[in-house]
């Protein structure tokens, strides 16, 4: 009776990458542990249908197999045994890959039929299923994780578990931008649950300035490295990390600073994969601000069509994302800016009304428009009374930043007259669960793709010029996003 073996799995890699290995009929000795040597007979190419490969297995057996089908459109390969020292008779096998579109992974199906000498059915079925197919799944997974498919044959594997040199920015004391200094550093191999990233773009945020000034001392002590987000590619993965491969493009944001560096180890839970359409600079410029906007619009103050949103620094990096996105979702967006030039930027980014208020006097103008249902406040201390005055009844005041100084203590009863709500969210809490992070990132890239938000204007600085970048971030002439290039 003909025996049948079917095994299948899901590989955390795009189908093109898995197929590039499997379509090569002569590749098994590079990734499958049971195969000691593989060669194609008669000097034929390994993608020549009809070619024969000759395997020497590590247990001493020899197998000759012929390629019967190679289908690049359906990611399918069929082959049969023509001669073997193991008693697999009339053995024909098919490997089929299919894309898992939801997650850019690969479904891998491997099946075969064969006959055996009487009484050895079960033994040989188990051998094929476990030693060849299941072991092959695990071996190919490991091969891809190490980037084995990205090297030329014979080239040494990337050194793993060694420290790598890099340059990083350190804060040599709280204070001005000149406190940021660049030094040599070594980044150890990633620990359990960590991924080592070669960073190609680092996003700057106002929280970096607060950290530098010493306004959040529990988060960053002198001697530490600022920076909450970056984009780049995976170098290697620590123990227990599944789902990321070397060279895969990723970005992250995390609640612990340390991003101003060329190479960094980060917990795998912080990472999101980057779609091809989003380059490293855009990802670094957008991720933290975009996810902040997403959390505001969908969770902190779920947007109701027709609601009036007052957004300060509307021409700033966050404003350029939040205002058009809120407008697209149906809000009436009122922006405040510090100059006429920025007012033009704000109008081009979704603001129905723009108030030029370099002195933080805007409440009267907002009340003339009916008051704000939601205030997104990055201004802090000097605008506190104005924000309270600008709120509509039952309004929600979201305190996100403190460009004009840390907010003064707020009496709960100050909210009573308007029955108002006050919140002080940090984006990291809204991105702490990997599923929530992935969902928010997917919404952000979709908003970028469908034009709800425009690609940000980006100013680039080298890592060595981090101090100049901070000075620029603090100047009120700027609009748009700043990034560092290591």
């Amino acid at each position: 009776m003909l025996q049948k073996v079917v095994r299948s799995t899901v590989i955390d890699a795009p189908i093109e990458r898995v197929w590039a290995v499997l379509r090569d009929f002569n590749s098994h000795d590079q990734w499958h542990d049971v195969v000691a040597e593989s060669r194609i007979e008669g000097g034929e190419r390994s993608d020549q249908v009809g070619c024969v490969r000759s395997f020497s297995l590590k247990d001493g057996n020899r197998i000759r197999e012929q390629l019967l089908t190679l289908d690049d459109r359906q990611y399918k390969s069929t082959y049969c045994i023509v001669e073997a020292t193991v008693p697999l008779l009339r053995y024909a096998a098919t490997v089929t890959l299919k894309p898992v579109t939801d997650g850019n992974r690969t479904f891998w199906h491997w099946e075969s039929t064969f006959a055996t000498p009487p009484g050895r059915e079960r033994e040989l079925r188990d051998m094929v299923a476990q030693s060849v197919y299941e072991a092959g799944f695990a071996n190919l997974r490991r091969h891809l994780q190490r980037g084995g498919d990205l090297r030329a044959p014979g080239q040494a594997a990337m050194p793993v578990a060694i420290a790598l040199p890099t340059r990083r920015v350190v804060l040599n004391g709280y204070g001005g931008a000149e406190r940021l200094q660049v030094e040599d550093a070594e980044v150890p191999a990633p620990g359990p649950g960590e991924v080592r990233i070669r960073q190609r773009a680092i996003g700057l945020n106002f929280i970096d300035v607060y950290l530098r000034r010493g306004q959040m001392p529990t988060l960053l002590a002198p001697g530490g490295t600022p920076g909450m987000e970056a984009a780049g590619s995976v170098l290697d993965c620590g123990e227990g990390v599944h789902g990321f491969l070397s060279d895969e493009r990723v970005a992250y944001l995390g609640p612990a600073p340390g991003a101003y560096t060329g190479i960094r180890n980060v917990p795998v839970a912080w990472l999101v994969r980057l779609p091809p359409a989003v380059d490293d600079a855009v990802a670094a410029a957008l991720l933290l601000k975009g996810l902040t906007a997403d959390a505001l619009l969908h969770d902190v103050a779920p947007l109701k069509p027709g609601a009036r949103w007052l957004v300060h620094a509307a021409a700033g990096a966050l404003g350029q994302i939040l205002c058009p996105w809120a407008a697209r979702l149906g809000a009436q967006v009122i922006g405040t800016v510090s100059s006429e030039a920025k007012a033009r930027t704000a109008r081009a980014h979704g603001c129905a009304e723009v108030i030029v208020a370099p002195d933080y006097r805007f409440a009267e103008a907002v009340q003339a428009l009916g008051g704000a249902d939601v205030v997104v406040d990055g201004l802090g201390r000097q605008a506190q009374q104005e924000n309270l005055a600008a709120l509509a009844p039952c309004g929600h005041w979201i305190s996100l930043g403190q460009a004009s100084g840390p907010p003064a203590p707020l009496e709960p009863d100050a909210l009573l007259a308007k029955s108002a709500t006050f919140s002080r969210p940090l984006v990291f809490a809204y991105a702490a669960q990997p599923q929530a992070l992935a969902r928010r990132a997917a919404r952000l890239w979709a908003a970028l793709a469908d034009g709800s938000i425009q690609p940000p204007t980006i100013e680039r600085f080298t890592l060595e010029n981090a101090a100049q970048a901070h000075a620029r971030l603090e100047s009120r002439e700027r609009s748009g996003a700043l990034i560092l290039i290591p």
Partner: protein
Amino acid sequence: MIRLYVSTVLEAGADNVWARIRDFNGLPQWHPGIADSRIENGEPSDRVGCIRHFHTRDGGTIRERLLALSDFDFTQTYEILESPMGVEHYVATLKLTPVTDGNRCFAEWSAEFDCDEGREQELTRTIADGVFQTGFDALKRLYR
């Protein structure tokens, strides 16, 4: 001819998921976009050739005919007879395949159809994201 393809991995065995989705009249029980469904002429919902008549939550009426049903390889194929979407020659297939390592299955939903020029992208998005992926997301929530 437009072709589209959506696939996912569900954290439950293929036979288990199939028991839920094989009912051609059962969409409202698992797909969040479907309000109600009935089979025309009182036919059984697993009779190849039967027609389901259902309403989407946004009020659209759709009639679809079951073209193939396989309990052997967990496959269901159907065509649209009537819909507000403006598609022609629309045939779709929903298929499950067991994933042998772990108690999970690989789910595929594909369709091909014709439409007016210029509407390809919009319809691809509506069907791939709004119908297929939305359905898969609901199943993923059920089996996580």
